[in-house]
């Protein structure tokens, strides 16, 4: 795995979220057990799913034996969102599948395989190939500031945001609201007049009327 750019080093690229809902007063004291329960579990070649996600040490994605010292840095909850995927190269799969298909046809004395037989064969070949590979590993830094309840995910991928949303809610039993122009404005404590204007806001037009008429 290459060096990550995130909370600990390098330039920063991130998405922000607001942590809302029933946030415990003592997050370190009440959540470590659930963090450990949602720690990353290694993939098995026989898994039906192609990928798996869970928490890891922010400093070392291979370390999933999480304890207080590895997760809680003063007012920050620091975690690695580890995502492993089986990536079987297409040409390799194709070549092995063709070989397995021909062997099966010869064994059964058939000319063609049915759809189900082909699917079963593919599953078998994929599992066999997985045993010769290691899953690809990526880890994304997640830092939750307990004082401001702002969370930074060091990724701007929507897919990784969705994974975080699922894992975070499952672990901490709180909500995550993604920062966006609308949610950021909504959190400003708008008065009644501003709230009415906000509800009916329309995009501004910078072209002048005479240009629009052309």
């Amino acid at each position, binding site marked *: 795995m290459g060096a990550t750019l995130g*909370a*600990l*080093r390098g*330039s*920063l*690229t*991130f*998405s*922000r979220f607001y942590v809302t809902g029933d946030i415990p007063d003592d997050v370190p004291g009440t959540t470590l057990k659930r963090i450990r329960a949602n720690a990353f579990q290694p993939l098995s070649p026989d898994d039906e799913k192609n990928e798996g996600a869970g928490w890891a040490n922010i*400093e070392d994605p291979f370390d999933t034996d999480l304890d207080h010292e590895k997760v809680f*840095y*003063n007012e*920050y909850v*620091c975690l690695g969102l580890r995502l492993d995927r089986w990536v079987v190269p297409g040409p390799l799969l194709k070549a092995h599948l063709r070989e397995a298909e021909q062997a099966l046809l010869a064994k059964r004395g058939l000319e063609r395989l049915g759809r189900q037989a082909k699917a079963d064969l593919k599953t078998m070949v994929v599992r066999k190939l997985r045993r010769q590979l290691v899953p690809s590993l990526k880890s994304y830094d997640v*830092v939750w*500031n307990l004082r*401001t309840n*702002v969370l*930074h995910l060091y990724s*701007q991928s929507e897919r990784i945001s969705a994974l975080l949303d699922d894992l975070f809610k499952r672990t901490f039993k709180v909500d995550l*609201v*993604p*920062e*966006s*122009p*609308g*949610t*950021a*404005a*909504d959190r*400003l404590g*708008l*008065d009644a*007049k*501003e709230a009415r*204007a*906000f*509800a009916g*806001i329309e*995009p*501004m*037009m*910078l*072209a*002048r009327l005479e*240009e629009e008429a052309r």
Partner: protein
Amino acid sequence: MELLDLIEGRRFMGREFVVWLWFESEMQETNLHPTGADPVSMWLEAQITLVLEKEESRLKGAIPASSPEAKEALRQGKLPKEAKMRLVRGEREYAWTLKADSLGLSGLKLPTQLKKNDEKHEVFYERMMLLEDLETSLSALYADFVRMRLADPWDDEVVPLIKSWAHGEKPDAGAYLATKRAVLGEKRKKKR
């Protein structure tokens, strides 16, 4: 308002925020005074991408936002989708790309002092403190924009000035600042 509408239905405000920052920066010669936060010097630099539906203008250069092409793109109805920015607060200097639709920051360079070989937790705390300082400035600027955007004078007084600026004219900076003081000053009084 439903969360989905709040997010998807208001994304254009991020693009308008970048236009406003750009306008503010040019009107005030980069010296911005966000309400409730320290003054900063801020400007757009290096690259700006403006879009209207599928049409895109990507401009590069030292300060592409000052180029006639950038204003021309605004006049065509294009708005900034992303822009590289630089902010100086005291002795600290930050540079990043702002993604307007999400307000996400990418490639943010922090003015760190500690080196990676220093005590690792200290390096982390320094980075988080510097990041929070920048976010305080950006949040205060965004709050000022939203207050201005939702106030009565926006359509009748501010938009004509921004249009005039986008058309390469020299808008009345005094009139703009008076409007801004009236809107934001009133908010400050109400807060007390």
